[in-house]
């Protein structure tokens, strides 16, 4: 059993504990990502892995917990979305009060550099896997804040975005359509923005530090 090396970069996935299975023994208590590490002796193991991944992704797509963090005017669309008229709990989407309990982050509208710092901190505290939905044209190209001194223009320089929803403001129907895209992507196993963030953390950090002048966040906000 390889032990977790605390000195390594915490986001380096290779330093996560792996299970080394001695030959002839039965693997027990596999970790989540190495669920079928010792299963090469099982016939049709790839198919089985695929089936398990499909089921896992289906579960993930069916329980989306949206973080209660409204950054801009778009947060006003989340109220009709979550209440009776456009009831989002039909699709297994519900709200979550803290980053530790949520896995979907809706950047709802413009993001000032001051809020960006808090958004990054909240995003990193969310457990993996997690997804970001960017709402409105402000997150795409700045929108009506394209010449604002205090508002970022391109969100995916600072955070991995899985779904963009255009409009100013998008209606709750558009949000539901965006969630539909997101769930489809999760079921296909293609919504891997969180993975991209961990792999390219230094690139994201450079971009973030360019706009946030007083950087005082830890190396990674676990």
């Amino acid at each position: 059993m390889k032990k977790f090396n605390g000195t390594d970069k915490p986001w380096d996935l290779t330093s996560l504990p792996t299970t080394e299975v001695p030959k002839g023994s039965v693997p027990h208590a596999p970790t989540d990502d190495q669920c079928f590490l010792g299963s090469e002796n099982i016939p049709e193991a790839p198919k089985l892995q695929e089936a398990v991944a499909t089921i896992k992704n289906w579960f993930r797509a069916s329980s989306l917990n949206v973080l209660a963090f409204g950054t801009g005017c778009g947060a006003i669309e989340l109220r009709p979305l979550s209440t009776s008229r456009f009831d989002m709990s039909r699709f297994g989407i519900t709200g979550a009060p803290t980053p530790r309990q949520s896995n979907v982050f809706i950047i709802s509208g413009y993001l000032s550099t001051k809020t960006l710092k808090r958004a990054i901190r909240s995003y990193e505290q969310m457990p993996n896997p997690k997804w970001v939905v960017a709402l409105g044209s402000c997150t795409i190209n700045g929108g009506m804040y394209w010449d604002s001194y205090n508002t970022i223009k391109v969100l995916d320089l600072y955070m991995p975005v899985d779904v963009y929803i255009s409009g100013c403001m998008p209606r709750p129907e558009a949000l539901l359509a965006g969630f539909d895209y997101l769930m489809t992507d999760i079921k296909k196993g293609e919504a891997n923005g969180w993975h991209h963030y961990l792999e390219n953390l230094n690139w994201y950090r450079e971009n973030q530090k360019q706009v946030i002048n007083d950087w005082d966040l830890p190396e990674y906000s676990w």
Partner: protein
Amino acid sequence: MFKINDKTQWDDGSGQVIDELKARFGDHPVHFQRDDLARVQIPQKDLLPVLSWLRGDTPFVQLTHMTAIDWMEEGEFELVYLVTAPTLLTSLMICIRVDREKAQAETVFNLWLHAETYEQEINEMFGIDFPGSPRQGVPFILEAWKDIPPMRRDFDTVEYCARTHPERPGREHQDTRKYVGRKFGEKGFLK
């Protein structure tokens, strides 16, 4: 009781507050903007006497708003104090001019406690100092701002924005005239 919300009284300048203000502090220009709003331009040294007199001896007891205007060409800032009489539903704009190079004005924090927040914001956004006011220099909206104060007119917002916030490729700003003209196929559209 002062009667100054009557338009006829505003018009002939017989508003008692205005009259008394002129009698006490000199004949300063008064502009009657609306039935319930007049603007008085006073010199900077008269600011505290006028405001304390309004606060103490007249119905104008409430500081509703306080803001600054940048007259860059004249080398001056204008500070506007909007003082309201709640019983008369009437407001007075007391305006002073401050030198732009040595941007400094007296604090009215001792008259209205909430002026502290206005003064903090003006200090951050325009770079005008209010000595004696608490929270001067403490960040209010901006965080770790390194450039000149952003509401000064010599601050080039577009240039700053292009320098700090990159555009998405292919989504740069387009000239609206050219874009609309091309879209509608008319030469010189919106000329």
